[in-house]
């Protein structure tokens, strides 16, 4: 079997078997890996991202974004066996303010388990990460877990001139970086200082150790207009190139993406707040659609959670299987396919198997 997930098995039978062997309680998503891989080299964690908690005024926050995070937290808490830890992938806040970060932290505090945080641009550009760091600690760091080396990067930095010299107020700086298709924006980057740190950090790691990197922006260049982009992506990729198994997870794009560049497998995370459409550039042909300069509404505007979700990730022998828990949609799994040498959407590779667009009154 090329990957640890096989959706074709008989679930009822599987649950029966599983409940015989396990003393603990069981939800199917995370139990799969236990049945198909050695428990010694497999584990799972949950991955929640892009909640964009937004203050309206005083104690009033945008209900919709609150509900997205509340739901992801409540569902994560139902996973059994418990995930080893939880990653929050950045953009906890919308405009980086203290009330937003505090409120977001309060909602996240309901999570059972250790949470690792990734910095998003919406958390950063008001006070350059000062309050975020008070709440959550270091902006870039690494840790080891069950034979895997994890790295968390702050990939949403940019040119110093833009950050320090361009804007009359911190609020304006934040607002400019939050915009899409904004000519006043600036491309994200990891930066020299962090790359130096990464080089030193990775020097201690054996080349056959699986490496998993979390960044907020994709460590690849996808679409500059929306900052689906990291300016020094190639330089970061070069540092990761010597390792046998590398996986990069990123948020920011609010949609499912997966890719393989050399030895590096990339998979994105869904947002709990709202979905972004796929940029027109993906079509690689002229589409003549009106240019999108405002936030997209729901894929199905009635269901405010539609096209949002969160991930549960199974790691087996250093490779990842990402289970996307999607509201109003079938669960999807993007798993590394060893034979193909890249991640694959397990259920929807073939055209005829793809999910048709929703039709609604």
């Amino acid at each position, binding site marked *: 079997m090329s990957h640890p997930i096989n959706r074709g098995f008989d679930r009822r039978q599987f649950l029966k078997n599983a*409940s015989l062997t396990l003393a603990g309680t069981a939800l*199917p998503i995370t139990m799969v890996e236990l049945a198909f891989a050695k428990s010694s080299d497999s584990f799972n964690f949950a991955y929640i991202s892009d909640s964009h908690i937004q203050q309206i005024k005083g104690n009033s926050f945008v209900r919709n974004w609150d*509900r997205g995070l509340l739901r992801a937290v409540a569902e994560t808490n*139902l996973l059994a066996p418990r995930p080893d830890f939880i990653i929050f992938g950045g953009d906890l806040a919308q405009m980086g303010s203290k009330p937003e970060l505090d409120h977001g932290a309060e909602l996240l505090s309901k999570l059972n388990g250790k949470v690792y945080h990734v910095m998003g641009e919406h958390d950063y550009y008001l006070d350059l990460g000062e309050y975020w760091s008070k709440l959550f600690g270091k902006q870039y760091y690494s840790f080891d877990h069950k034979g895997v080396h994890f790295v968390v990067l702050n990939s949403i930095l940019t040119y110093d001139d833009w950050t320090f010299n361009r804007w009359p107020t911190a609020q304006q700086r934040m607002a400019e970086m939050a915009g899409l298709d904004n000519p006043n924006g600036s491309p994200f980057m990891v930066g020299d200082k962090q790359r130096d740190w990464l080089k030193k950090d990775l020097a201690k790691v054996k080349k056959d150790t699986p490496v998993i990197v979390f960044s907020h922006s994709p460590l690849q260049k996808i679409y500059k207009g929306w900052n689906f982009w990291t300016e020094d992506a190639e330089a970061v990729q070069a540092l990761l190139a010597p390792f046998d198994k590398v996986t990069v997870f990123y948020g920011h794009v609010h949609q499912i993406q997966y890719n393989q560049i050399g030895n590096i497998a990339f998979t994105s995370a869904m947002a709990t707040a709202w979905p972004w459409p796929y940029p027109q550039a993906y079509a690689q042909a002229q589409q003549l659609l009106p240019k999108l300069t405002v936030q997209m509404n729901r894929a199905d505007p009635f269901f405010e*959670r*539609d096209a949002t979700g969160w991930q549960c990730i199974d790691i087996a022998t250093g490779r990842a299987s990402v289970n996307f828990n999607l509201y109003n949609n079938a669960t999807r799994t993007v798993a590394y396919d060893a034979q193909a040498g890249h991640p694959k959407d397990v259920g929807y590779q073939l055209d005829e198997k793809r999910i048709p667009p929703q039709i609604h*009154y």
Partner: protein
Amino acid sequence: MAPPIHTMLAAACIGFAAPAAVHAQPLGLPPLHIPADNPQTPDKIKLGDKLFNDKRFSSTGLISCATCHDPNKAFTDSPLVTSKGIKDLTGTRNAPTVVNAAYFSLFFWDGRSPTIEDQAQHPIINPVEMGLSNHDPVLQIVRIDPEYVNAFRTVFKTEPAQVTMKEVQKAIASFERTIISGDSPFDRWYFGKDKTAINAQAQRGFDVFLNKGRCVSCHVIENDQALFTDNRFHNIGVGINRIQNEVQDFAPKFLQAKGSGVDVDKAVLSNPKASELGRFAVTDSLDELGSFKTSTLRNVSVTAPFMHDGSLKTLRDVVEHYNNGGITNKTDKVNDFLSGGIRPLNLTEEEMSDLVAFLETLTSPQFAAQRAAMGTAPACNVKTPASLVAAAAARTVEHSPIKTAGQP
């Protein structure tokens, strides 16, 4: 008084007796899909009707399908909150009407049954419904009772010893497929273009239904027909709100019990906590925690109380619940798993009254007399005091005969 629906049943039979004549489609309903392996015939429908009303198919000899789906109560057991089976045992769920049920794509409140044929077998062996331990007593009766022997011979060309539950269920399904009704004042107004069929208030209510109330997104209306359901499942904050603090502990436990062989049909009807898990109990899908099937709205004026647990007494209570964004009382906690479509609506008092007036226009002529007998129209537009709602909710939990999943 003869059940009013039988007029229509007779009409349907005449239609079948003369195949050349297309029997009239009730206004507002789409053509009903009849499965190829279970065609409608007058004899089969008659047999289904007899089976539907046969109390011998219960352990006490006192309960038939019609006990909880009473033709005189629009095929419900209104005003019961949750249904009463053998020995007055109460289940966890409100009896949904059979009227137009044939149009659903999945059956029971949580969709745990895939066809109307499949559905019919389950209540017979549910311990809080008809209470038999298996289907054998049913087969014994239909294989010996001369009327049944003859009927099964005629309908299925089957000798008594060969009759199985498959034929029994097919006949019941065929009968249920005749219990459809449209032709409501709304249908005459909207599809029939009769401008006077519903009054100005109901017309304003229809506008609320389509726009500010957001009702139509799930209670679907098409260009030429309206079933008022999307055949999907949603967490609208009913039932699940009562067990919010226990979900984290209970949901995984339930799945484990299910994995070790607990019967979902029995568990959800006898264990109130399991019941409130909704479609999650069937599919294990986190996205469907606390979700239940979108009911049709046809004939809601005669099928109170409402929701899967019968916890809302009047149509006004239902509208208020939605207006509050999925909580019955404004101070309740919104459940974490609430469907994305549910949010506070900010309807005015007048808009809520208009909406209820619109819902009253969905009553088919067969049930107009029943509606009239229930008294003045405002009954549906009366808010139940919060104290009574809380008391009813508490009762539902207390009455549970079962403490944990898997111990029916």
